[in-house]
């Protein structure tokens, strides 16, 4: 390896790349982050900033989410400045049958260590006074939190820079440097960058970066819209969403799914999601989706009917066929690590992803067994 090589080149300046850069730089590695766009210019800048344990049934993703939510709590102190809010999540069901399903999901999550509080219909108003009174009940997840995702990425990158990392935006990866079967760096629009390890944290574009290295990682876009209201006082305390959201997240249907997700922000605006569609990178505003989101939000919080929407944005969640992210070294291209495909949970899972990658690069035992997230798992 040439002497001017970085220990680690991270491809992608979104929240996952930022967390990876931070943990790698903190453990003493020389790090260079490259992004063809700007800081947090992709999916990171298009989400709500959720750090959720509530929406995941027991399994590999919940394990990752639990590790990550603890790490985010630490990052809020160690790095800070990104509006970390341990507001908790409230999942509500509109029918008794839905409530039963929700309660049994909560019970199984509790067995893995997730804190849950079952809230009968009559007590919902104590937690969320503006909720429609017609619900069957809910479950409160005190462990759910929120950050301002762009600030989180920018602050982590800034902290990494303070430890010597370089962040180069507007630099596009065009290929890989090879030495035998090994990947030894990236070719970019600004010249070659040799490195001991390359981390593919390119989010939705992770599949394209992988293909430049000659390996297949099936990451595809799943479009979502978010409505933003006028600035308001705090009228929604938690992240509040309908139980159907969990099923929508896990759905393999390409068609549109919408389920109400409503939450306030430190800035005063309320964010309203969530829609899921597989329509490639179509950026066209879908009035049909916006109407569905608005109708569901008003059904959940009737007080919102008279509140103005002042903005809408769309983003593309990077999803894999089994809805698990791709995390770990790629045995098909030694030297290459993947940290992408987090679908709609990228902010929440970023901290754990970055830490695990940094540990793997250092040759340490990772905090969590990464076998479920291995990149070659899709090979026939």
């Amino acid at each position, binding site marked *: 390896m040439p002497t001017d090589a970085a220990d680690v080149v991270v491809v992608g300046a979104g929240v996952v790349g930022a967390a990876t850069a931070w943990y790698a730089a903190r453990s003493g590695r020389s790090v260079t982050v490259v992004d063809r766009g700007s800081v947090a210019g992709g999916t990171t800048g298009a989400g709500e900033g959720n750090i959720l344990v509530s929406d995941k049934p027991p399994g590999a993703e919940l394990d990752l989410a639990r590790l990550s939510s603890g790490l985010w709590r630490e990052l809020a102190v160690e790095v800070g400045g990104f509006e970390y809010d341990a507001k908790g999540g409230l999942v509500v069901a509109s029918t008794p049958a839905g409530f039963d399903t929700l309660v049994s999901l909560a019970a199984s999550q509790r067995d893995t260590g997730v804190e849950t509080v079952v809230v009968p219909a009559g007590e919902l108003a104590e937690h969320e006074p503006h909720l429609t009174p017609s619900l069957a009940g809910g479950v409160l997840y005190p462990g759910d939190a929120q950050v301002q995702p762009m600030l989180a990425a920018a602050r982590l990158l800034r902290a990494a820079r303070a430890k010597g990392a370089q962040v180069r935006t507007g630099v596009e990866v065009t290929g890989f440097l090879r030495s035998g079967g090994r990947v030894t760096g990236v070719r970019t629009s600004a010249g070659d960058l040799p490195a001991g390890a390359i981390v593919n944290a390119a989010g939705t574009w992770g599949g394209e970066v992988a293909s430049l290295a000659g390996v297949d990682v099936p990451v595809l876009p799943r479009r979502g819209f978010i409505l933003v209201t006028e*600035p308001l006082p*705090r009228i929604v305390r938690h992240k509040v969403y309908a139980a159907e959201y969990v099923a929508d997240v896990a759905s393999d249907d390409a068609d549109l799914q919408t389920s109400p997700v409503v939450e306030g922000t430190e800035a005063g605006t309320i964010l309203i999601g969530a829609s899921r569609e597989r329509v490639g990178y179509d950026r066209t505003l879908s009035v049909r989706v916006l109407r569905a989101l608005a109708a569901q939000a008003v059904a959940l919080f009737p007080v919102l009917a008279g509140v103005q929407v002042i903005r809408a944005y769309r983003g593309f969640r990077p999803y894999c066929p089994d809805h698990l992210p791709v995390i770990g070294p790629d045995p098909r291209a030694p030297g290459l690590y993947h940290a992408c495909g987090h679908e709609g949970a990228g902010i929440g899972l970023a901290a754990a992803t970055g830490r695990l990658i940094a540990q793997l690069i250092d040759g340490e035992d990772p905090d969590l067994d990464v076998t479920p997230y291995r990149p070659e798992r899709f090979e026939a």
Partner: protein
Amino acid sequence: MSARFEFDGRAVPFSEGQTVGAALVAAGVRSWRTTRREGRPRGVFCGIGICFDCLVTVDDVPNQRACLVPASSGAIVRSQEGDGRGHLAV
């Protein structure tokens, strides 16, 4: 005798076709809103519905652009604090 609307308890005259904001300016009222963070006074700035600085509560509906809302007889116009929806806070 010209038409009037009520602004914070007093009568403000206007002539047909004027906006609430214009009638307030004509009556010597320069501001009718305070900002959410610093509590700074605001009134008309752009006058054509672009800047949203002149937000005001008209007939209990907050956040209306005074420079666009036509003045009407008997309307109850109130100055507005912050987001204008403080009563909804929980």
